[in-house]
């Protein structure tokens, strides 16, 4: 069996909410007070490369937290380990043909897992050791690849999804823009805030409902 891989996060950066949102997933803090998050798909090395790339796509900067604080890499890891990662939501019967993808969509055989494994190869083992400027240059070269476009979209998803998916930790993404979370009613606010910002502390779906909600990627029953 594959060795269990972890990615380490500084516990301080993550705060209590991470412990809460990762409950049941074997969390342990090591001597330097770092949180080990068990990985489902990536190796530790791969996770670090993706984390570094994500940090350039949505950087941590003067505008606020980015992909790192949101835990985007854990979001992506969970997605790739789910049925989505192995194309359980895509028609995969042959014959496979080449066709104009602007009309027929992607016709290749690569699953999202394959695409990431290949993409990580393109980023290179030394990616984490590069300066931010060098990392940007390497990413720019990949901009038109399927891998980059997937990674870029996954970064937005991991920043802005409901925290049940392990991204948007502490709702840092929603706080960046002032999104209140999946509130159940705006009947009163519709008329009370015309052209005026309605910005309240966000709540996640499970906080609003008062009970945990199971995300799609944890679905255990076979999809097909």
């Amino acid at each position, binding site marked *: 069996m594959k060795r269990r891989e972890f990615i380490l996060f500084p516990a301080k950066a993550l705060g209590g909410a991470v412990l809460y949102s990762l409950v049941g997933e074997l969390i342990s803090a090591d001597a330097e007070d770092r949180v080990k998050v068990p990985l489902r798909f990536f190796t530790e090395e791969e996770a670090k490369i993706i984390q570094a790339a994500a940090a350039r796509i949505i950087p941590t900067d003067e505008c606020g937290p980015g992909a790192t604080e949101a835990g985007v890499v854990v979001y992506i890891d969970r997605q790739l380990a789910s049925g989505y990662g192995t194309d359980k939501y895509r028609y995969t019967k042959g014959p496979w043909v080449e066709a104009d993808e602007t009309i027929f969509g992607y016709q290749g055989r690569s699953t999202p897992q394959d695409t990431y494994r290949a993409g990580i190869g393109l980023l290179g083992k030394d990616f984490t050791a590069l300066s931010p400027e060098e990392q940007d240059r390497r990413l720019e070269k990949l901009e038109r690849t399927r891998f980059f476009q997937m990674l870029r979209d996954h970064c937005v998803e991991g920043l*802005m999804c409901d925290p049940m998916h392990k991204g948007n930790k502490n709702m840092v993404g929603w706080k960046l823009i002032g999104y209140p979370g999946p509130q159940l009613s705006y009947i009163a606010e519709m008329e009370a805030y015309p052209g005026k910002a309605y910005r309240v502390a966000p709540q996640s779906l499970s906080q609003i409902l008062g009970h945990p909600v199971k995300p799609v990627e944890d679905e255990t029953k076979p999809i097909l």
Partner: protein
Amino acid sequence: MKRLKPTDVVIVGSGFAGLVMAKEIASRTALNVAVLERGPARSLEKYVEEMDEIDILRVGLGQNPAEQTITLRNTNKQTAVPLRLLALFHPGTGTGGASEAWAGFGERFLPEQMVLATHLREKFGAKRIPPDWTIRDWGITYDEFEDYYWRAEEMMGVSGKAGNLNGKLIPGGNIFEGPRKHEFPNPPLTPTYTMGFWYKAALALGYHPYPMPTAIASQNYTNPYGVSRPGCFYSGFCINHGCKTGAKAMPTSVLMPALENEKNFVLRNNSWVRKIVHRDGHAEGVVYMDENGEETMQPADLVVVAAFTPDSVRLLYLSGIGDPYDPNTGDGTLGMNLTHQVNGGGGGMLVFDEPLNLFMTTSSLSYGVSDFDGDLPEDVPEGVLRGGQFTGGAVQDYLPVMSFGRIPPGAAPRNWGSEWKKAAISYWDRIGPGVGMSMDTYPYRQNYMDLDPTYTDKWGDPLLRFTMEYTDYEQRQFAYAARMSAQFTQKIAEVSKAKLISTGPGGNGGGFRHYDGVRYKTTHIQGGAIMGASPDQSALNTWLQHWKTPNLFVVGSNALPQNAAGHPTTTIVALAYRAADGVIDHYLKRPGLIG
């Protein structure tokens, strides 16, 4: 093969079309009705837990393309390619089908839609009508159909304001609509902030804006079946989602609560129908894969297919019912008149200084403008024969994953990195809804559906194949919509003080030469088994009864010979009421072709 006890009526599909048939037959007769639905059960309780974007990005309430998709080619000289993701349209699955995930726009068609072939010939003469159009009259008129519209509206609790009550025009409603006998069951929804600008701009242009009819209840409402539901909470998570309070009319919120009390009704989920068994023009039942994957025969005296256009048409092909359409000779009716509605628009991006709270909305909250719908007041430079309907003023949903990162062109050097992030934060919730126009969608001799010779679904049955392409006429429709939308958008910018930033042609068709399978258009797909007045022109009669198999009714948008500018579902539901009357008042009294 497992063989079940016969039932009186078997219905394939549990969307609005299937369950309206089920409810009418189960409560007005003593017959036993079994509905077979390929997907799982759905419930409002579950929808609360689906206020999420990630599951919607994967498969959500939609049919999983891994199990079954369609193939596409632009002309019949090409080899079709499977759409490996279903982006083109979103077929539903599970109790309620796409009728759970829909947006809820609920207007009627204009009266001339039912007699469009005659209408255009009389107005323009045969010469100006493109020779490859295969438009058809329905075989019934609006006046004969009005009461069915009303039954659909009452059942769904449509919210709106009448613009033509018995011929009397009422300002504030849609004065261009056909005469209706009743005011809407519910008053309009509460408009959002941005809708105010849309309304003002429309008035400034001399248009006649009206609250768009929507199947989302604006207040507590009880329908004629005794099913109650609350009014809308404007919380978003509406389109592509099930409505957690049931304010949006869905089979689970307006039909299932009444059907559950009917002793002669049963709904079987995870039951995938593969074939209608028939002999000598008589349907004997259906064969399906039950929830355990066991092949099962359900004998029945009457078969109703209501699986939504592509699946209903595919089932007829798989069963060998009807004569396949041949585009070269024009012979045969099965598969003909495939139409797919696309929308035009554009005119630019409206950037506001103030935050808009766009997430306070629901999916079909909007105004409409029908001044250009149907016959145009004068000839236009694009040379289109008919115009379209503006709908808009609010966004359909504004959730963080889908909205974050949408910025004006040029606001950042690329779509990632610090500058982009800064722009994405700054523009979030400040780009107002644009202007779109939906237009009539015409059938062509060369656009049709049949079975793919190569690709199969998870059971090994052939996939449905679309052969479909835009012509010069659709390009002119997009150009017309783009020009009209630009004018409208300009006026919205003026009245709202929003900054207008130019973008390319909008809508989900404009700017592209080919009909493609990549960009979502609508889930308004019509034709394949159309209705009409004679068997050589159509697969079904006007009761949606199959001409060659009288104990088979094929109910849904498959019956529409062409599509109007308007959204189709209220019309589909009205057609289902008429088909139910056909079964109950005519067929059961005298089995055989009605007429």
